[in-house]
C-alpha cells in the first residue's frame, strides 16, 4: 500500500479507496470480467470455481493490466502504452470493451480529479484509451503512486467477476467476499510485480511489459459478444 512508500499527497490513501470502490461511477457495473461466459460454459459454478477463475485472471490479464496502469502512473507515454495494451489483448471484443471502459473512466476521472493530462488524453484519443492506461493516469491525477494504480487494477480484475458471480449464480455474497479475501496475498504480489514491470517499461519502453494472456477468457469474450441475450455487456 501507499504507506510503504509514504503518501506524497494528503488524502492519497483515501483517494485509492475511492478509485478502487466498485461503486465508483465508471461503467464497470455492467461488466462481468468474463464471468458470464464462464458460467455458461460451466467452468464457474460456485465459490471454489470462482476462486480459480479469479486466480487465473489475476495472474494473466490482471498482471498485464496492473503493469500498464503502474507504467502510466509513473509517466510513461500513454499512447505508447495504449498500443502495447492492444498488442496484449488478442480478443477484438475485449479490446473494444477495454477502450469503452477506458473512455467511461476518463469521463469520471476528469470530473473527480481534473488534470491537464486527462484532458490531453481525451483529446488525443476521443474513441477511448485502454482502461488500465486511463486508470494509471487517473491515479496520478489523484496523487497516487504507481503501486497504488497496480493495486487498483489487480483488485478490479478479481472483484469484477466476484460481484458478477453473485448476480449470475445467486452465489452467497459472503462466500464471494471470502474468495476475494483469500486472494489478497496474491493481489499483493501481482501488484508488486506489476510495479516493477512498470518501472522497467519506463526505462526500456513498453516491450518490457508482461504479456500474459488467458486463451479461455479470450475465446469466452468472443463468443459472449455474439450472444443475443445476456445480462452483462462483457
Amino acid at each position, binding site marked *: 500500500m501507499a504507506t510503504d512508500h509514504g503518501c506524497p499527497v494528503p488524502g492519497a490513501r483515501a483517494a485509492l479507496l475511492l478509485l478502487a470502490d466498485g*461503486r465508483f461511477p465508471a*461503467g464497470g457495473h*455492467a461488466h462481468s470480467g468474463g464471468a458470464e461466459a464462464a458460467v455458461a460454459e460451466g467452468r464457474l459454478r460456485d465459490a471454489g470455481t470462482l476462486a480459480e477463475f479469479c486466480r487465473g485472471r489475476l495472474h494473466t490479464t490482471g498482471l498485464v493490466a496492473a503493469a500498464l496502469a503502474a507504467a502510466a502512473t509513473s509517466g510513461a507515454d500513454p499512447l505508447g502504452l495504449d498500443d502495447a495494451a492492444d498488442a496484449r489483448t488478442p480478443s477484438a471484443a475485449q479490446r473494444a470493451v477495454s477502450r469503452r471502459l477506458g473512455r*467511461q473512466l476518463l*469521463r469520471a476521472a476528469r470530473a473527480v480529479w481534473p488534470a491537464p493530462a486527462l484532458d490531453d488524453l481525451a483529446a488525443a484519443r476521443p474513441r477511448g484509451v485502454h482502461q488500465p492506461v486511463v486508470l494509471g493516469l487517473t491515479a496520478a491525477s489523484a496523487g497516487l503512486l504507481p503501486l497504488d494504480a497496480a493495486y487498483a487494477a489487480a483488485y478490479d480484475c478479481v472483484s469484477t467477476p466476484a460481484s458478477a458471480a453473485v448476480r449470475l449464480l445467486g452465489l452467497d455474497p459472503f462466500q464471494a467476499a471470502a474468495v476475494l479475501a483469500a486472494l489478497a496475498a496474491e493481489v499483493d504480489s501481482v501488484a508488486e510485480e506489476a510495479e516493477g514491470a512498470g518501472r522497467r517499461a519506463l526505462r526500456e519502453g513498453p516491450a518490457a511489459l508482461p504479456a500474459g494472456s488467458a486463451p479461455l477468457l479470450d475465446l469466452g469474450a468472443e463468443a459472449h459478444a455474439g450472444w443475443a441475450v445476456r445480462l*452483462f455487456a462483457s
Partner: protein
Amino acid sequence: MHRDGPEVFPERYTASVEVGERALRVGLGGPVGSGKTATVAALCRALRATVSIGVVTNDIYTREDADFLLREAVLPAERIVAVETGACPHTAIRDDISANLEAVEELEEAVGPLDLVLVESGGDNLTATFSRGLVDAQVFVIDVAGGDDIPRKGGPGVTTADLLVVNKIDLAPYVGADLERMAVDAAAQRGALPVLFTAVKQPGGIDPVAAWVGDRLAAWRAVRT
C-alpha cells in the same frame, strides 16, 4: 448540488457536451409492463415530423425494447441505441450513468443535431429514478392494472418525477381500478407536480404526454437561446 444553469434546467451533467449544443433529455421510468416502450413509440410517432428525436433503451437483457421500436419503425434504426445494464437498470440510470451518457452523446454525434433524446429505463421497482446528471426531466409511467394503490404507496418515482403518467385507463373497468382515488392519492403525494391519466395505445392517447414534452422543449429552447 452544483447548479450553474437556470433553475428550470439545472446544469446536470459533467464532462459532456456544452450547454446549448445538446438535445433535451427526457427519462422514462416505471414498473415492468406499465407502457414505457409504448409511450416512447407513440411519442416518436406524434413528434417526429417536427422534432429531431433519438432514443436510448436500457434493457435487463440486451435489446428487447430497442428491437420492438425498430420493428415498429418509429424512427430510423440509427436513431435508436440500446445500453446494456449488467442486470441492474436502476444502476445504469442513477448510480453509474457512464454508459447512458456515452450512448446519448454518441447518438448526438452520429445523427445530430437532435432536439430530444428519450431515455427509457428497463422496467424496475418503484424506487428507480433517473440521475439528474443524465436527464433534464423524467416521466414515471404506471398503469391502472398494476394496482390502484400505487399512487398511495408513493416512492421516489411517483412522488418526484416531473410528470406522472397513469396509463391504460381503458382497462380500468376490467380491473376495478378507482381512477378518482388514484388522482386524489397522486395529488397528495405530488403536490403541484402534474399527473396525466391516459391510454397511450388508444387513438389520441399520447396527445397530453406529447403536449407536456412539447412544453419542456419550448422551455429548453428558451434557456438555450
